[in-house]
Protein backbone atom coordinates (compact mmCIF):
# COMPACT_ATOMS: atom_id res chain seq x y z
CA UNK A 1 0.00 0.00 0.00
CA UNK A 2 1.32 3.33 -1.02
CA UNK A 3 2.08 5.51 1.84
CA UNK A 4 1.82 9.27 1.46
CA UNK A 5 3.24 11.09 4.31
CA UNK A 6 1.66 14.34 5.27
CA UNK A 7 4.90 16.33 4.71
CA UNK A 8 5.22 15.08 1.11
CA UNK A 9 2.19 17.06 0.06
CA UNK A 10 2.67 20.65 -0.89
CA UNK A 11 1.82 22.80 2.03
CA UNK A 12 -0.69 24.86 0.11
CA UNK A 13 -1.65 24.26 -3.43
CA UNK A 14 -2.39 27.59 -5.08
CA UNK A 15 -4.56 27.10 -8.16
CA UNK A 16 -3.30 30.45 -9.50
CA UNK A 17 0.36 29.61 -9.16
CA UNK A 18 0.63 28.49 -12.76
CA UNK A 19 -0.92 31.74 -14.00
CA UNK A 20 1.48 33.69 -11.85
CA UNK A 21 4.39 31.83 -13.41
CA UNK A 22 3.15 32.64 -16.93
CA UNK A 23 2.66 36.27 -16.03
CA UNK A 24 6.21 36.54 -14.73
CA UNK A 25 7.53 34.95 -17.88
CA UNK A 26 5.68 37.45 -20.04
CA UNK A 27 6.94 40.29 -17.90
CA UNK A 28 10.46 39.14 -18.42
CA UNK A 29 9.93 38.85 -22.15
CA UNK A 30 8.59 42.37 -22.49
CA UNK A 31 11.42 43.69 -20.34
CA UNK A 32 14.05 42.21 -22.62
CA UNK A 33 12.33 43.81 -25.62
CA UNK A 34 12.45 47.21 -23.99
CA UNK A 35 16.13 46.83 -23.30
CA UNK A 36 16.87 45.85 -26.86
CA UNK A 37 15.19 48.91 -28.25
CA UNK A 38 16.89 51.10 -25.72
CA UNK A 39 17.26 54.67 -26.79
CA UNK A 40 15.28 54.21 -29.95
CA UNK A 41 11.82 55.15 -30.93
CA UNK A 42 11.13 56.74 -27.61
CA UNK A 43 11.14 60.30 -28.82
CA UNK A 44 8.14 61.48 -30.73
CA UNK A 45 9.24 64.96 -31.58
CA UNK A 46 12.34 65.93 -33.52
CA UNK A 47 15.06 66.26 -32.39
CA UNK A 48 15.84 63.30 -30.18
CA UNK A 49 17.49 64.50 -27.01
CA UNK A 50 19.81 63.14 -24.40
CA UNK A 51 19.75 64.82 -21.02
CA UNK A 52 22.44 64.34 -18.42
CA UNK A 53 22.60 65.68 -14.94
CA UNK A 54 25.71 66.66 -13.11
CA UNK A 55 25.99 68.03 -9.61
CA UNK A 56 25.72 71.65 -10.65
CA UNK A 57 24.45 71.60 -14.20
CA UNK A 58 22.29 69.95 -16.80
CA UNK A 59 23.55 68.91 -20.20
CA UNK A 60 21.24 68.50 -23.15
CA UNK A 61 22.53 67.13 -26.41
CA UNK A 62 20.87 66.65 -29.77
CA UNK A 63 22.01 65.54 -33.19
CA UNK A 64 21.11 68.22 -35.69
CA UNK A 65 22.97 67.51 -38.90
CA UNK A 66 22.72 70.17 -41.55
CA UNK A 67 21.24 72.79 -39.25
CA UNK A 68 23.00 76.13 -39.36
CA UNK A 69 23.57 78.22 -36.24
CA UNK A 70 21.56 81.03 -37.81
CA UNK A 71 18.58 78.73 -38.30
CA UNK A 72 18.52 77.50 -34.73
CA UNK A 73 16.52 79.23 -32.08
CA UNK A 74 16.72 78.44 -28.39
CA UNK A 75 14.70 80.05 -25.70
CA UNK A 76 14.09 79.46 -22.03
CA UNK A 77 11.04 80.50 -20.17
CA UNK A 78 10.66 79.49 -16.57
CA UNK A 79 11.40 75.79 -16.63
CA UNK A 80 10.66 75.21 -20.29
CA UNK A 81 13.37 75.08 -22.88
CA UNK A 82 12.26 75.50 -26.47
CA UNK A 83 14.28 74.40 -29.47
CA UNK A 84 13.24 75.64 -32.84
CA UNK A 85 14.87 75.56 -36.18
CA UNK A 86 14.87 74.37 -39.71
CA UNK A 87 16.94 72.47 -42.12
CA UNK A 88 17.23 73.85 -45.60
CA UNK A 89 18.29 72.14 -48.74
CA UNK A 90 19.14 73.97 -51.86
CA UNK A 91 19.75 71.35 -54.56
CA UNK A 92 17.09 72.06 -57.06
CA UNK A 93 19.16 72.11 -60.18
CA UNK A 94 17.69 70.91 -63.37
CA UNK A 95 18.88 67.62 -64.75
CA UNK A 96 19.33 66.06 -61.35
CA UNK A 97 17.99 62.60 -60.84
CA UNK A 98 17.74 61.21 -57.37
CA UNK A 99 18.73 57.66 -56.61
CA UNK A 100 17.99 57.88 -52.91
CA UNK A 101 16.29 60.45 -50.75
CA UNK A 102 16.53 59.63 -47.09
CA UNK A 103 17.39 63.01 -45.70
CA UNK A 104 14.44 65.20 -44.93
CA UNK A 105 14.28 68.92 -44.73
CA UNK A 106 11.85 71.07 -42.88
CA UNK A 107 11.31 72.78 -39.59
CA UNK A 108 11.17 71.52 -36.05
CA UNK A 109 10.06 72.76 -32.70
CA UNK A 110 10.35 71.01 -29.41
CA UNK A 111 9.68 72.21 -25.88
CA UNK A 112 10.93 70.33 -22.88
CA UNK A 113 10.17 70.78 -19.23
CA UNK A 114 13.43 70.90 -17.36
CA UNK A 115 13.59 68.51 -14.43
CA UNK A 116 15.23 71.05 -12.12
CA UNK A 117 15.26 74.80 -11.71
CA UNK A 118 18.00 76.44 -13.73
CA UNK A 119 19.62 79.82 -13.77
CA UNK A 120 18.38 81.44 -16.99
CA UNK A 121 21.40 83.72 -17.02
CA UNK A 122 23.82 80.84 -17.24
CA UNK A 123 22.81 78.94 -20.32
CA UNK A 124 25.41 78.01 -22.84
CA UNK A 125 24.66 76.45 -26.22
CA UNK A 126 27.12 75.16 -28.75
CA UNK A 127 26.55 73.70 -32.18
CA UNK A 128 29.54 71.86 -33.58
CA UNK A 129 29.66 69.23 -36.32
CA UNK A 130 25.92 68.87 -36.21
CA UNK A 131 25.72 68.24 -32.47
CA UNK A 132 24.02 70.71 -30.22
CA UNK A 133 25.13 70.83 -26.60
CA UNK A 134 23.20 73.00 -24.19
CA UNK A 135 24.68 73.50 -20.75
CA UNK A 136 22.35 74.85 -18.12
CA UNK A 137 23.61 75.78 -14.67
CA UNK A 138 21.28 74.73 -11.92
CA UNK A 139 19.74 77.47 -9.85
CA UNK A 140 21.73 78.03 -6.68
CA UNK A 141 18.81 76.87 -4.56
CA UNK A 142 19.00 73.34 -5.97
CA UNK A 143 22.77 73.04 -6.24
CA UNK A 144 23.97 70.66 -3.59
CA UNK A 145 26.07 72.28 -0.97
CA UNK A 146 28.82 70.50 0.84
CA UNK A 147 28.34 70.44 4.56
CA UNK A 148 31.41 70.20 6.64
CA UNK A 149 31.33 67.79 9.50
CA UNK A 150 33.40 68.76 12.47
CA UNK A 151 34.27 66.97 15.62
CA UNK A 152 34.01 68.63 18.92
Amino acid at each position, binding site marked *: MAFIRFTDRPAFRNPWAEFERIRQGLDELSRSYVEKG*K*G*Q*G*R*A*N*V*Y*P*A*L*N*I*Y*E*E*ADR*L*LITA*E*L*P*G*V*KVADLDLSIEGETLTLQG*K*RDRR*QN*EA*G*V*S*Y*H*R*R*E*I*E*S*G*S*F*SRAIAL*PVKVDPEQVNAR*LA*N*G*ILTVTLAKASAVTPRQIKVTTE
Partner: protein
Amino acid sequence: MTEQELKIQEKKAAQPGDENTKNECCFAPHVDIYETEREVAVIADMPGVTVEGIELSLEDNILTIQGHRVLQQQPGRILLEEYESGHYLRRFTVAETIDQERIAASLVDGVLTVRLPKTIPAQPRKIEVRLG
Protein backbone atom coordinates in the same frame (compact mmCIF):
# COMPACT_ATOMS: atom_id res chain seq x y z
CA MET B 1 4.09 76.74 -41.02
CA THR B 2 4.11 75.90 -44.66
CA GLU B 3 7.21 73.84 -44.42
CA GLN B 4 7.25 70.20 -43.68
CA GLU B 5 7.99 69.26 -40.12
CA LEU B 6 11.01 67.16 -39.45
CA LYS B 7 10.38 63.73 -38.05
CA ILE B 8 12.59 61.47 -36.10
CA GLN B 9 14.23 58.93 -38.31
CA GLU B 10 15.25 55.73 -36.71
CA LYS B 11 18.95 55.07 -36.69
CA LYS B 12 19.74 51.78 -38.26
CA ALA B 13 22.71 49.81 -37.09
CA ALA B 14 25.27 49.05 -39.76
CA GLN B 15 27.02 45.74 -39.89
CA PRO B 16 30.76 46.02 -40.32
CA GLY B 17 32.47 43.17 -42.11
CA ASP B 18 33.74 41.67 -38.92
CA GLU B 19 32.77 42.21 -35.38
CA ASN B 20 34.37 44.93 -33.38
CA THR B 21 36.14 44.07 -30.17
CA LYS B 22 34.94 47.30 -28.66
CA ASN B 23 31.33 47.53 -27.73
CA GLU B 24 30.67 50.53 -29.92
CA CYS B 25 27.73 50.90 -32.21
CA CYS B 26 28.00 51.52 -35.89
CA PHE B 27 25.12 53.25 -37.63
CA ALA B 28 24.25 53.52 -41.27
CA PRO B 29 23.97 57.24 -42.00
CA HIS B 30 20.96 58.51 -43.88
CA VAL B 31 21.93 59.49 -47.39
CA ASP B 32 20.77 61.32 -50.44
CA ILE B 33 22.28 60.23 -53.71
CA TYR B 34 21.77 62.08 -56.92
CA GLU B 35 23.22 62.06 -60.32
CA THR B 36 23.80 64.80 -62.80
CA GLU B 37 25.31 64.64 -66.24
CA ARG B 38 28.77 65.09 -64.88
CA GLU B 39 28.80 63.51 -61.46
CA VAL B 40 27.24 61.38 -58.79
CA ALA B 41 26.86 63.04 -55.40
CA VAL B 42 26.40 61.31 -52.08
CA ILE B 43 25.22 63.33 -49.11
CA ALA B 44 25.36 61.65 -45.72
CA ASP B 45 24.24 62.82 -42.31
CA MET B 46 27.05 62.15 -39.88
CA PRO B 47 26.63 64.35 -36.86
CA GLY B 48 29.54 64.43 -34.46
CA VAL B 49 32.20 63.40 -36.93
CA THR B 50 35.14 65.69 -37.58
CA VAL B 51 37.15 65.84 -40.79
CA GLU B 52 39.86 63.64 -39.25
CA GLY B 53 37.36 60.89 -38.56
CA ILE B 54 36.16 60.50 -42.14
CA GLU B 55 37.44 57.64 -44.21
CA LEU B 56 36.43 57.29 -47.83
CA SER B 57 37.40 54.68 -50.32
CA LEU B 58 36.32 53.55 -53.74
CA GLU B 59 37.51 50.08 -54.58
CA ASP B 60 36.10 47.76 -57.19
CA ASN B 61 33.14 50.08 -57.64
CA ILE B 62 32.33 49.91 -53.94
CA LEU B 63 32.20 53.23 -52.21
CA THR B 64 32.76 52.97 -48.48
CA ILE B 65 31.92 55.85 -46.22
CA GLN B 66 33.19 55.58 -42.70
CA GLY B 67 33.00 58.10 -39.94
CA HIS B 68 34.74 57.62 -36.64
CA ARG B 69 33.78 59.83 -33.83
CA VAL B 70 35.31 60.34 -30.47
CA LEU B 71 32.81 58.76 -28.15
CA GLN B 72 33.11 60.51 -24.89
CA GLN B 73 32.15 59.27 -21.51
CA GLN B 74 28.64 60.25 -20.69
CA PRO B 75 28.73 63.05 -18.21
CA GLY B 76 26.89 62.60 -14.94
CA ARG B 77 23.61 60.78 -14.64
CA ILE B 78 21.30 60.03 -17.55
CA LEU B 79 17.90 61.61 -17.21
CA LEU B 80 16.73 60.97 -20.74
CA GLU B 81 18.27 58.98 -23.53
CA GLU B 82 16.47 59.17 -26.82
CA TYR B 83 19.34 58.48 -29.15
CA GLU B 84 22.57 56.59 -29.13
CA SER B 85 25.82 57.80 -30.59
CA GLY B 86 28.15 55.68 -32.58
CA HIS B 87 30.37 55.47 -35.58
CA TYR B 88 29.05 55.52 -39.11
CA LEU B 89 29.48 53.05 -41.90
CA ARG B 90 27.79 52.55 -45.23
CA ARG B 91 28.75 50.97 -48.51
CA PHE B 92 27.40 51.46 -51.99
CA THR B 93 28.06 49.89 -55.32
CA VAL B 94 28.62 52.61 -57.86
CA ALA B 95 27.50 51.57 -61.29
CA GLU B 96 28.93 54.53 -63.15
CA THR B 97 32.58 54.81 -64.09
CA ILE B 98 34.12 57.31 -61.75
CA ASP B 99 37.18 59.40 -62.23
CA GLN B 100 39.07 58.34 -59.10
CA GLU B 101 41.48 61.25 -59.28
CA ARG B 102 38.86 63.93 -59.00
CA ILE B 103 36.73 62.66 -56.12
CA ALA B 104 36.08 65.50 -53.73
CA ALA B 105 34.47 65.53 -50.31
CA SER B 106 33.44 68.19 -47.86
CA LEU B 107 32.03 68.16 -44.36
CA VAL B 108 29.76 70.95 -43.17
CA ASP B 109 27.63 70.91 -39.99
CA GLY B 110 27.89 67.17 -39.69
CA VAL B 111 26.84 66.56 -43.27
CA LEU B 112 29.27 64.87 -45.61
CA THR B 113 29.10 65.57 -49.32
CA VAL B 114 31.05 63.34 -51.67
CA ARG B 115 31.26 64.23 -55.33
CA LEU B 116 32.21 61.49 -57.71
CA PRO B 117 32.84 62.89 -61.18
CA LYS B 118 32.07 60.55 -64.02
CA THR B 119 34.79 59.81 -66.49
CA ILE B 120 34.18 61.59 -69.73
CA PRO B 121 33.64 58.99 -72.39
CA ALA B 122 36.00 59.22 -75.29
CA GLN B 123 34.58 61.41 -77.98
CA PRO B 124 33.57 59.41 -80.99
CA ARG B 125 35.99 60.18 -83.73
CA LYS B 126 34.58 60.90 -87.07
CA ILE B 127 36.27 59.16 -89.87
CA GLU B 128 35.97 60.87 -93.12
CA VAL B 129 35.78 58.77 -96.14
CA ARG B 130 37.16 60.34 -99.17
CA LEU B 131 36.35 59.48 -102.61
CA GLY B 132 39.01 58.68 -105.07
